[in-house]
């Protein structure tokens, strides 16, 4: 497979193809009749996904460097280039993005009835944007994609969303924009300062990484700006309140993409930029303490609040807050185990929460409600749905053997050594996770089947299309739960590199062999 791909010159064209084909797909969608839009979108997104699968084989797992890299001038005078590349961290984010897209199209098949062309065009635009965020290695390019992704989501929530969509979408937009504009300021200041010391104006990630140590006393401010932007996106408590609203109001595919991909942009930002660029700040004891506390608070808070939500989607949204707390904990514990765990949490959460939103959406299409009070006893009438909901819920709460567990366990395991108390508290999160999720499952598919609308669901179990949407995700959950090695192997080099980068230069550190060494003061 690897040889076959290299004979095609795969490494040279794959990233441009992933960025351009979805956008190019917009044109036929706009030209074709509205009824055909979804078919075209499905074809395009499937092609993109299939093509992106080649990354799996073409990726060299032994290398922690960026692969498939390319550099083209954009605004060379300003040191702004089209610089892209993929490493073990971005590989799975890219694959997650491309994989979710055909499912999102399929999941919207009957849900979206108005302005279909616009909807599917936006979905495709979003694909490019998401891939762009994860492959960009130029800070300007990154920011470009980072902001660009807001627009399709803004419209998807605002146009095709629920009754309270206007409030939700502007909240989503302003929250994110607030953080990212401050990040833009930090990017510019950092580039300027680096240009002052080196005489070279460049937005190149590698270049800035090399010279990030020379930022001196301004570094904490830069870090704060980056961290704020990413923390809002993750979202970390207390910047999380946009998420429940956005999730609740968004149409199914919007919620799915939001959960599966967009939130990952935040944690990805920490992994790629905020921590490696400013390790001295990020890994200094007070900052570490702050972020670990916020992560743990997020885990517990998200879970507890999820428990008392009357609306299924809000519950899943809050569960995302909780899960992303695990990812943040893993990043800040900064051991190989915890970082790979964080990545696994990100992937696992993408699969499980994505599937949950799909399932809730399917339920909504049947019942036109998302309130727990309207459900109950559905296992009797729609067993296949119930089975899938159960598996997904179990993956979400981290049952061993399913995808959620591997990530959570690795995060906690890797964090325990340096942060035993925080880890201990975070571990209790699994109890609360079980509490809200099982209670949710119970209120939906168990309990007495009393309401006539629910009884009428008999015979309206998932159809082929819906099974095709959820089944791949469930397959992924089981695969990642039982045999995550191929995934872990590919991300190990990048995770190790992250850990090395994030060792603060000025404090005592624990080296790989366990001995204490004194860093340069």
């Amino acid at each position, binding site marked *: 497979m690897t040889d076959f791909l290299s004979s095609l010159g795969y490494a040279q064209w794959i990233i441009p193809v992933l960025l351009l084909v979805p956008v190019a797909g917009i044109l036929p969608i706009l030209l074709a009749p509205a009824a055909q839009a979804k078919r075209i979108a499905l074809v395009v997104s499937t092609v993109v996904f299939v093509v992106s699968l080649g990354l799996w084989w073409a990726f060299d797992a032994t290398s922690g460097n960026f692969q498939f890299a390319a550099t083209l001038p954009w605004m060379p005078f300003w040191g702004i280039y089209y610089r892209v590349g993929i490493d073990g961290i971005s590989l799975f984010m890219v694959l997650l993005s491309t994989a979710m897209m055909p499912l999102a199209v399929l999941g919207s098949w009957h849900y979206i009835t108005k302005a279909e062309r616009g909807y599917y065009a936006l979905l495709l635009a979003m694909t490019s944007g998401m891939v762009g965020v994860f492959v960009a290695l130029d800070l300007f390019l990154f920011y470009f994609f980072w902001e660009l992704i807001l627009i399709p989501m803004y419209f998807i929530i605002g146009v095709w969303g629920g009754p309270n969509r206007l409030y939700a979408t502007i909240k989503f937009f302003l929250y994110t924009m607030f953080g990212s504009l401050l990040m833009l300021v930090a990017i510019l200041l950092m580039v300027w300062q680096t240009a002052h010391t080196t005489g070279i104006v460049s937005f190149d990630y590698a270049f800035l990484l090399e010279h990030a140590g020379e930022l001196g006393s301004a570094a904490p401010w830069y870090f704060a700006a980056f961290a704020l932007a990413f923390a809002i996106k993750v979202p970390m408590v207390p910047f999380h309140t946009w998420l429940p609203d956005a999730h609740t109001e968004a149409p199914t595919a919007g919620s799915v993409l939001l959960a599966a991909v967009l939130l990952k942009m935040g944690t990805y930002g920490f992994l790629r930029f905020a921590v490696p660029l400013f390790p001295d700040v990020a890994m200094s004891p007070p900052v570490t303490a702050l972020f670990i506390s916020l992560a743990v608070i997020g885990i517990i808070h998200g879970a507890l609040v999820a428990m008392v939500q009357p609306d299924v989607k809000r519950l899943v949204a809050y569960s995302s807050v909780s899960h992303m707390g695990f990812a943040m904990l893993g990043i800040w514990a900064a051991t190989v185990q915890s970082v790979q765990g964080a990545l696994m949490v990100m992937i696992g959460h993408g699969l499980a929460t994505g599937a949950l939103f799909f399932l809730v959406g399917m339920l909504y299409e049947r019942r036109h409600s998302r309130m727990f009070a309207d459900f109950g006893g559905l296992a009797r009438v729609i067993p296949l749905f119930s089975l899938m909901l159960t598996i997904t819920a179990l993956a979400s709460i981290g049952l061993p053997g399913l995808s959620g567990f591997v990530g959570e366990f690795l995060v906690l395991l890797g964090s325990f050594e340096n942060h035993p108390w925080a880890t201990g508290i975070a571990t209790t999160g*699994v109890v609360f996770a079980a509490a809200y999720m*099982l209670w949710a499952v119970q209120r939906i598919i168990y309990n007495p089947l009393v309401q006539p609308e629910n009884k009428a669901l008999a015979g309206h179990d998932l159809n082929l299309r819906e099974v095709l949407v959820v089944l791949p995700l469930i397959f992924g959950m089981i695969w990642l739960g*039982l045999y995550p090695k191929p995934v872990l192997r590919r991300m190990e080099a990048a995770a190790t590199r992250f850990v090395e980068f994030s060792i603060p230069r000025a404090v005592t550190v624990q080296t790989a062999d366990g001995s204490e060494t004194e860093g340069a003061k």
Partner: protein
Amino acid sequence: MLLTLAGPAAQALEAVPRWLVLHPHWVWLTVALPLAGFLINGKLAIAASGPVPLLPPKLAQRITEMVRRYQHGIVTVVGTGVLLAAFVVSLMLFLGFQFLDTQSAYVLRLWSWIPVGRFQVDMALQVDQLSLVMLLVVTGVGSLIHLFSVGYMREDPGYARYFAYLNLFIAFMLVLVLGSSFLVMFIGWEGVGLCSYLLIGFWFEDKANSDAGKKAFLVNRIGDVGFMIAMFMIWTTVGSLDFSTVLRELPAAVPVGGALITAITMFLFLGATGKSAQIPLYVWLPDAMAGPTPVSALIHAATMVTAGVYLVARTGVLFAMAPISSTIVAGVGVVTALFAASMALRQYDIKKVLAYSTISQLGYMFLGVGTGAFAAGIFHLITHAFFKALLFLGAGSVIHAMHHAYHEVHSSEDAQDMRNMGGLRKAMPWTTVLMWIAALAIAGMPLSGFFSKDEILAYAFGRGHDNPVFYLYYVLGIVTALMTAFYMARLMAMTFHGKSRTGADAEPYLHEAPWIMTGPLVVLGILTVFGGMINLPTWAGGHHWLQSWLLPITATAEMYLRPELPHGTTEYVLIGLALTAALVGLVAGYRLTVGQTIVPARDAPEERGFWKVLYHKYYVDELYDAVIVRPLILFSQRFLWKGVDTRVVDGVFVNGSAGISRFLGQIGSRFQTGQLGFYVLLFVLGALWILRAMVGGG
């Protein structure tokens, strides 16, 4: 290897034909078989209830019809077949293990599961003396209960689903006992919890049932947190989670009796209390009786709930190194035993009595492993599996009959309430006899239960030498034995003796269960009578076979903690004491129950005084609800959600900043009066400011 067997047994082994012997690397079969059963039955369960979505409709229709027609048969054959096959494989493995050259564990590495840097965990199964014993118990008792279920669940619409769950449970249970590392064991550990959840809530349309399932899972998860933290500590200390590595290296890495080892063992024990229903996490088990009775027998009596005991025995060396922990384990065990037995005294639901009895017996096991008598603990685990499974299945057969009778007469009476029974011995002679056997065994008559319980108590007494608190444990254990005998006699008397309280119209419909149900009961009865033989003490002419068989497992632990059995007169005095307690309890229980008039459940008066406290299980559920559950929900809802998120973060910061911006904007808008004079005024003020800046700057 053959050394562990006595002479005649060794000779017998020589005679075993080679084709009956399996090398341990076939151990994966035992997991794979039930798993395959789960997949097939699960598929049938789904297919039976609706169209198969992945196929063209016509074909799907035909398949559905075919499946409907033959489903029951296929499910029965597959569901029980895989278990029987697994049992046979287990037996062959057991034999095969005798032929191995070494005594040490055989580890079958299937695939590398989670490899991350230093952290390496393989999906691997471990075959050794302990896991083989557990393997045999699980598949053996499991097979019998599967067979019983064929009769018990015959008419249930969820027949296929039931067997799917049951098979899945066995698969997970085997992963639990066979797992070669803490983490693989944890798969099984949580997996059985899942199946327990699914099976307790099997009849999910009754809210109480699904509540009970959820409660079981949640309480178990609290324990699992302990298990996980213990794993983190172990990995941080020795860098591995494999049993062999950990049990070899941890003793060298940490000081005996130190804080770390105490913490590790206490967290492990927290996990065990969850799974094995000990104080303070026992509350889920009585509720778990909401599941079908064979499930109670399999999961909540014979196998899953003993996982905690298995865990402590498996990591015995760690507990042996931490005297504080092991004392606490034993203490919690015996207090739970007493506490649960006291609650069993005043229960009327036949399954609830058995549930508290299970908690109580599990307490004995923890007393055993806490004392350091790991073999004795495992011994009681095995005998308990036999007699408690028998009791539950017997109760199941009673309930089946009662339910059937009530169903015939369209009565909505409680089929499980003993106040509605009485005099059933006439209708159900087989069940009566078999249940009496089990009752005597658990009460401490010299059947299987007697030997195991007596041994635990004796070891506890023996450890009193070093640590006088164990004398207290012993006394509590004897009191518990008395109570045990009492409530078992009460149960038997209320159910099978005295006058019938079923109601005249229902009585004719009561009859013995079909052979598919009584058959397993008979086998279990035989096991209950003779099960004690596997570890018969020397005074009774035995050789402590089980103890010597498990020696490779327990040997390391004995380097740190070696409890002694009392000898000579003391030994006989203790035995006499135990027997006396049992006899007194039995007689008193029977006489008191048969002597009083019992009112059927419907007309039963309110309990009074201390009986009321016992009847309401010391109000522990209510206490937990009031102290933990309700405050937590209120805290989450009122404070975290409505307070922090809605009012503070959203209200003050998000919408607040938007509101302030808008407010400021409106003020600015108000200044825009339309009056040119005001505009000029501002202009001039601005001009003065600029000129002032110029002069000041210049």
